[in-house]
């Protein structure tokens, strides 16, 4: 394992053990090693012994903020809906947070999904997570039996022998275009702040914007044609906490449930739009997609527009209201047609 990540694993285990042993937190949310090489799984340590299973490496692609609301709720004493809310301090949870995850926690605090006073956030400046699909593509489908990382390279072993890849070349798109690798909200920071800063964060979007309307429609149809509607992108998303998602609604049925192209596209449009102004580009949706669809491009387009139109970025500051919960008299006006702008103005 890389020197940096090995150090961080040690530090995370040490701090998690300390937090659990002192009773400051009832559970610690992190990652444990996955059963296959290049995978990790989200892991809740509840005893200092369990904290020894925590790891930190380049494959922590799932967003931990996704598990917070349910985990916090599970630690509350059971009560029926008519019972009064519990009084006194409730058990706390320790959680790891990179730049994007900490911003998701900020969004969840703003949306009253988590209680800041019940969190102990260990900030980890992100070095970018590796996209497993990029690695597999680089190896042309050869099966990886063992993966080792150094600070700047990945060594992959299998029956064919050994291959070494540059780490940055296989880092996820969203990490390569990341502008906020450092946590914005934390109690303890485990490492020195990262200084990496993407130069052209929206270059992928600009390439699509440069196409004609027809070309974009072709691109959109083709890019999402392989979707199997498993909803992994939704389930991995820390913003998708509605108890009934619009895709599960029957009356009205917003979107059909079969694998019909317009339904699939409508699902993706609405899924992305529901994340508008809230998405922190953590890339979890894209990482979990079993079909390798670049679902993140949709939310990234929305982030770009919201940044240009309203100068807002999701989750940067708890005290700044999210862009869609507020307004400014000077906002751009889409309600503008030729007549309304000239004649329709009220005196």
């Amino acid at each position, binding site marked *: 394992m890389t020197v940096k990540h090995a150090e961080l694993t040690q530090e995370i285990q040490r701090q998690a053990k300390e937090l659990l042993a002192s009773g400051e937190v009832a559970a610690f949310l992190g990652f444990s090693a996955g059963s296959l090489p290049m995978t990790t799984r989200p892991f809740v340590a509840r005893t200092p012994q369990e904290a020894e299973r925590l790891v930190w490496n380049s494959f922590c692609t799932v967003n931990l903020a996704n598990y917070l609301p349910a985990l916090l709720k599970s630690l509350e004493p059971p009560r029926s809906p008519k019972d009064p809310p519990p009084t006194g301090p409730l058990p706390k949870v320790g959680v790891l947070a990179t730049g994007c995850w900490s911003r998701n926690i900020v969004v969840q605090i703003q949306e009253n999904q988590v209680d800041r006073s019940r969190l102990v956030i260990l900030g980890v400046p992100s070095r970018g997570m590796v996209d497993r699909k990029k690695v597999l593509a680089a190896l042309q489908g050869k099966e990886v039996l063992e993966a080792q990382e150094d600070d700047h390279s990945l060594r992959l072993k299998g029956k064919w022998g050994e291959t070494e890849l540059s780490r940055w070349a296989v880092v996820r798109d969203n990490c390569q275009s990341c502008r906020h690798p450092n946590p914005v909200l934390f109690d303890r920071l485990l490492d020195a702040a990262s200084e990496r800063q993407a130069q052209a964060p929206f270059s992928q979007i600009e390439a699509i914007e440069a196409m004609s*309307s027809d070309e974009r429609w072709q691109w959109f149809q083709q890019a999402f044609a392989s979707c199997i509607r498993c909803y992994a992108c939704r389930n991995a998303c820390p913003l998708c906490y509605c108890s009934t998602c619009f895709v599960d609604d029957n009356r009205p049925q917003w979107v059909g449930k079969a694998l019909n192209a*317009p339904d699939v596209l409508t699902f993706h*449009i*609405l899924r992305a739009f529901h994340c508008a102004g809230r998405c922190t580009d953590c890339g979890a949706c894209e990482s979990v997609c079993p079909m390798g669809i670049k679902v993140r491009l949709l939310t990234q387009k929305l982030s770009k527009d919201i940044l240009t139109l309203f100068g807002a970025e999701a989750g940067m500051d708890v005290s700044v209201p999210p862009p869609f919960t507020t307004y400014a008299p000077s906002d751009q006006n889409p309600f503008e047609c030729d007549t309304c702008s000239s004649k329709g103005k009220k005196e």
Partner: protein
Amino acid sequence: MDWEPKIVAFLCNWCSYAGADLAGVSRFQYPPNIRIIRVPCSGRVSANMILSALRSGADGVLVSGCHPGDCHYISGNLHARRRFSVLKNFLEFLGIEPGRLNFSWVSASEGEQFATVVREVTERVKALGPATRLVKRIEA
């Protein structure tokens, strides 16, 4: 050509719907292509509704509400303005023709204005032809 577009119009109860009413009472002619759905406020209209209209085969969608500052609920239309400026860009980014999705401000006193808006929107959608993108068709 016989084809006439079907346009779904989401009109806010307090301004645009009353504007449409005034257009009728004042006998202003406008194309009969719109199907009006009365909503409490333009802020009530969600992306789900707009896409639902397109998916069900509407050739165009018009959302109309009170002028900024005139909202019966103080700020519903201002919130809607933010949401729809992003939605409009987003749908155009994905290749939905500009002009399928239309927005306007029409107050209760602007009957003639309402007729003009509808005429314009109808012309724009007619020029685009029948909607095919995002329309769900049931194969026989």
